[in-house]
């Protein structure tokens, strides 16, 4: 598996190819649509991270010392960003996840989506991913 930083750089490179925000957003929307379905057994209150506008369901499990995340959201833009977060963090060791610094978000120019305005659940989602990583590290 590639390191978290290498994946982040790949994503940054991907986004650098786009000329404008429309292309970036269309790409995010595509990623959102392509995000593998969350097993409906996991779409439960316990896995819900409530933003004030869109909601995120997040599931984590451990497999061969790495964490695998699956998730869903009711808003497609949010789902697109989730897809990126999963691409970056899934399949890494709990320690790598806990220590990761997610700089790609600032670099690809979608920080608006990650402001602490609580409008979507993404800030809480990143926090939750790290908490899962720590919790499953045993």
């Amino acid at each position, binding site marked *: 598996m590639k390191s978290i930083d290498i994946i982040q750089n790949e994503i940054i490179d991907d986004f650098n190819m786009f000329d404008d925000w429309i292309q970036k957003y269309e790409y995010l*929307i595509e990623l959102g649509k392509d995000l593998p379905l969350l097993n409906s057994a996991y779409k439960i209150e316990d896995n819900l991270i409530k933003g004030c506008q*869109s909601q995120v369901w997040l599931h984590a499990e451990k497999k061969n010392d790495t964490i695998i995340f699956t998730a869903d959201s009711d808003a497609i833009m949010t789902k697109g960003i989730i897809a990126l977060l999963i691409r970056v963090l899934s399949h890494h060791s709990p320690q790598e996840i806990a220590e990761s610094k997610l700089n790609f978000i600032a670099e690809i120019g979608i920080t608006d989506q990650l402001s602490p305005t609580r409008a979507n659940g993404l800030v809480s989602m990143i926090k939750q991913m790290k908490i899962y990583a720590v919790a499953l590290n045993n």
Partner: protein
Amino acid sequence: MMLNIENIRAQFPILAQQIHGKNLVYLDNGATTQKPISVINAITNYYKNENSNVHRGVHFLSGLATKKLEKTRNAVKKFIGARYNHEIIFTKGATDSINLVANGYSTLLKKGDEIIISELEHHSNIVPWQICCENCGASLKIIPIKDNGELDMDCFYNMISKNTKIVAISHISNTLGTVNPVEKIISKAHELGAKVLIDGAQATTHVNLNMIDLDADYYVFSAHKMYGPTGVGVLYGKEEALNSLPVYQGGGEMIKDVSFKKTTYAPLPHKFEAGTPNIAGIIALNEAITFVLKLGIENIYNYERELLEYATNEILKIKGVVIYGNSKNKTGIISFNIDGIHPYDIGVIIDKFGVAIRTGHHCTQPLMERFKIPGTARISFAVYNTIEEINICIEAIKKAKSMLV
């Protein structure tokens, strides 16, 4: 009278803003309106020339600030057609005003008493009453709404009884735009001896208010939704209604005599104005009232109705659009969804086109529950909006839709 919209727009500096390289199209007026230069200048002028604490000072500036603050009280009194200046209490906003009354009722009511609100209320007109009920044991009854966004008045007439002590209803729904039949509610409530609080947060620039005719016991609103500054609200109450409430906050101006043996309270309005008020904001509210009165509330209403009708027609041309709130009697608010699209996604995308609308539950979660939706996209007009801006907004929504489906 025809309003000169170009002239009006020129009074709002922010309308010249560019957002993401596009002209700002501000259609989030239900959340807060923009401010004309006269309001902004009133604040600047206050701080540059007049700033001083009010009421008890004997020096010139203190007298001046006091005089200007009291002038706003008088302007509010006239604006809403109240009987007395001391029926006007300055608060920090509509929410603060409602809490003041609801807190008072938690000592006035007891188990068995009932409070009536409706399904379309803003959280600010729900939660204070829930807290009140928790504290005093009264129970909360809810007027349901019909599919078109109007109150189910039959239900209301069945629900209200001698046990009802207060009815708290918004004048205009911030999510649906529905103008509620507050006159009917007030007269029925009074028949049964219940008091009525009207949440006028969305109404002050759309309805000519006359408290004596309307006969509401309490009426609340926020300055920032009527072209005024943030941090200022009004609680109007009939003299006897306000006098019946216990004091809310203690401190500063609201006392007659403080001693450790016995503290007595000042008469209205001071009784409810503890602490240094938002002096600059209150003084600027006077300019906001002047602005609204100069244009004329009826003219504002009619113009916004034109915008509403045009926009409603145009938006309904987009396939899959559903509008929530279809009362004939509504103001310039359009809450909508597009089939299969989350409102959040629409808001995020059209923002990039410079269009500011609100998406989400608009602090009316029970109403969202009622329609079984996570939220809506909401366009809300002010007097400075134009048909051209609506066209830009509609185009942006269409583009968002084409990206999202």
